[in-house]
């Protein structure tokens, strides 16, 4: 079987960043194999610190490579913060952490103007958001105005302080953690703001054997393992570019759109039962995020093209925080995950 450069005689429209309109999958595969080598190193470093939670690590890398932001949700003690710190430790980038609390102010995140009596002038004091990796810990413990300040920075990739606009560094990645909203003292993120996160990963407790290992690592005399820097920021920026080059056939694009549409008009996809359960479906940003995340997943698997498995692998995390359920769904104890699973099981795979 030969994979060769072709002109598009099959009627397939190629929506690629390449200007020629053709894709050399073989060359792209080779390029990806070369450029994605660092992924294995990062994974190995992460595994030194994080026991289990392999899925979470993959999703962190997907968000990093797809130029998105990630929201981790789970009860306290599931290594959310540790995972993000470990990832930052693997890459030679600036890292800052903001612990969100109810008394936090927007200026504490983005920065402010400070008056210097000595110089008799205001000077800009940049906030912790001016870093490559920003860990917004327990983001739902701060009030809406602080959340809003951070989310604006996430979207615009720039911050305005005292009339001056400052670009945020590249690569820029926000990794936010939050406790389940049912817990006391939380300010749930509004739908419009949670939509800014490319993926939302819900963490579960580790398995028994994994938890035994966690205990052993934490109580041993040996110091707690630390990650070492194995990737340069330039490699991440380059990898992000290659991720965009990953070929996505129009059949896959249609599949993504079908999945998203099925959450909006379930009756069109033989999912009449979901009509009463879904309050609002996923936004167009979900389609974009799913496409980018699927490409990143293909990149992680060293493939130059997207297959339906890639889409299915990222679909739950992309759509989870973008679908609103009705009171009927709550009454029937139907979760978003159930809805997404039903959509995935019903929409025809290309």
């Amino acid at each position, binding site marked *: *079987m*030969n*994979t060769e450069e072709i002109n598009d005689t*099959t*009627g397939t429209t190629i929506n690629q960043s390449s200007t020629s309109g053709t894709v050399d*999958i073989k060359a792209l595969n080779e390029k990806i194999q070369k450029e994605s080598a660092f992924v294995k190193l990062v994974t190995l470093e992460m595994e030194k610190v994080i026991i289990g939670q392999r899925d979470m690590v993959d999703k962190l890398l997907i968000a990093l490579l797809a130029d998105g932001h990630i929201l981790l949700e789970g009860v306290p003690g599931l290594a959310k913060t540790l995972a993000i710190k470990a990832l930052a430790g693997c890459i030679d980038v600036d890292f800052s952490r903001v612990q969100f609390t109810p008394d936090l102010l927007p200026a504490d995140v983005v920065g402010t103007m400070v008056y210097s009596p000595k110089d008799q002038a205001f000077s800009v004091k940049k906030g912790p958001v001016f870093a490559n990796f920003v860990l917004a810990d327990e983001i739902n413990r701060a009030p809406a105005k602080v959340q809003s300040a951070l989310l604006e920075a996430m979207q615009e990739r720039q911050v305005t302080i005292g009339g001056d606009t400052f670009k945020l560094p590249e690569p820029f990645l926000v990794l936010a953690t939050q406790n389940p909203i049912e817990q006391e003292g939380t300010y749930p993120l509004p739908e419009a703001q949670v939509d800014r996160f490319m993926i939302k990963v819900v963490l579960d407790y580790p398995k028994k054997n994994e938890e035994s290992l966690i205990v052993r690592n934490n109580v041993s005399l040996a110091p707690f393992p630390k990650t070492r820097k194995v990737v340069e920021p330039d490699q991440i920026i380059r990898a992000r570019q290659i991720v965009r080059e990953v070929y996505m056939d129009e*059949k896959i694009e249609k599949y993504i759109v079908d999945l998203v549409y099925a959450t909006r008009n379930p009756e069109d996809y033989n999912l009449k039962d979901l009509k009463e359960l879904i309050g609002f479906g996923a936004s167009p940003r979900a389609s974009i995020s799913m496409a980018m995340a699927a490409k990143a997943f293909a990149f992680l698997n060293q493939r130059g093209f997207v297959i339906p*498995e890639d889409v299915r692998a990222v679909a739950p995390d992309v759509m989870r925080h973008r679908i609103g359920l009705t009171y009927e769904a709550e009454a029937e104890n139907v979760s978003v995950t159930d809805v997404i699973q039903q959509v995935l099981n019903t929409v*025809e*795979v290309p």
Partner: protein
Amino acid sequence: MNWMKDISALVVFVCAFGNANAQTADAVLTPQEILIGEQAVLTLSVSYPKNSLPGVAFPLFGDTIITDLEIVRSTDIDTLETADDVAETRIEQKLYLTAWDTGYYAIPPLEITVNGEKQLTEAFLLTVKTVEIDTTGGIKPSLDIYEVEVGWQDYLAVYWYYPAGALGLLGLIAATLLILRARKKRQADRPIVKKEEPQRPADQIALEALDQIKMAQIFKRGKIKQHHTEITDVLRDYLESVYQIPAHELTSNQILTRLRYVGLTEIESRHLREILNRADMVKFAKDRPDDLENQEAVNQTIEFVKTTASRMLSDKEIHE
């Protein structure tokens, strides 16, 4: 002729018990002058003392009493009862006379027999006149046609059959419509019993479709992606039908995972993996297999369907 019988009976009765000396026959004509067509009444009667019934015979008449003087009708001979304080009883008959020509008609005395004694009545002259025309006033113009107010009831009385016919027709149409509607409803309510056609075997359907794909050879016209899409669609239909998996909603890897424990041989599994992976490469990675490989994809699928179908059939026979 009944009146004649009655007269005969009366004669016999009167003869047996009557007393002739006290009986008188009489006749009266009123009026004695009539216009043409008017009627005059000639009353014949016999009076006799109470409780002495005489034998009386009135004369018999045909249609006329004399020439041109017609008897329009005559009454029966009747006995007129009298009150207790009156001494006489009377027997009488009335003749209604008319004439159709002007003139004077002499009615001769009529003979009435009372207790065997013949008594003659008085003779009469009946004058029949015509209508007098006043010629002194000159000729008068003819009158206009008399206008009569005619209402719908009058029309209805004459032409009742038109509305009756229309109503009848409407009733007939309504009845027909009701019958048709009831019939339609009955047919709609009737459960539709479809004749179940025996389901064709999945392998037969799949092989037919694959043969068509093989014959069409659309890959030679550059439609390689469509060629492999059609093959995998047929294959997915077959797998859904035979192994009861939602193959159209599963990815290639998921299909292979689901079919891991359904008893496929190693060769069958390998063929299936090759078919699906090749199709995925064409569909999603812009792979362009050569004609040989495209043909091989169909052949491999046909082979897979044939072997799995025959094995399943033999397994079924053994099981039975």
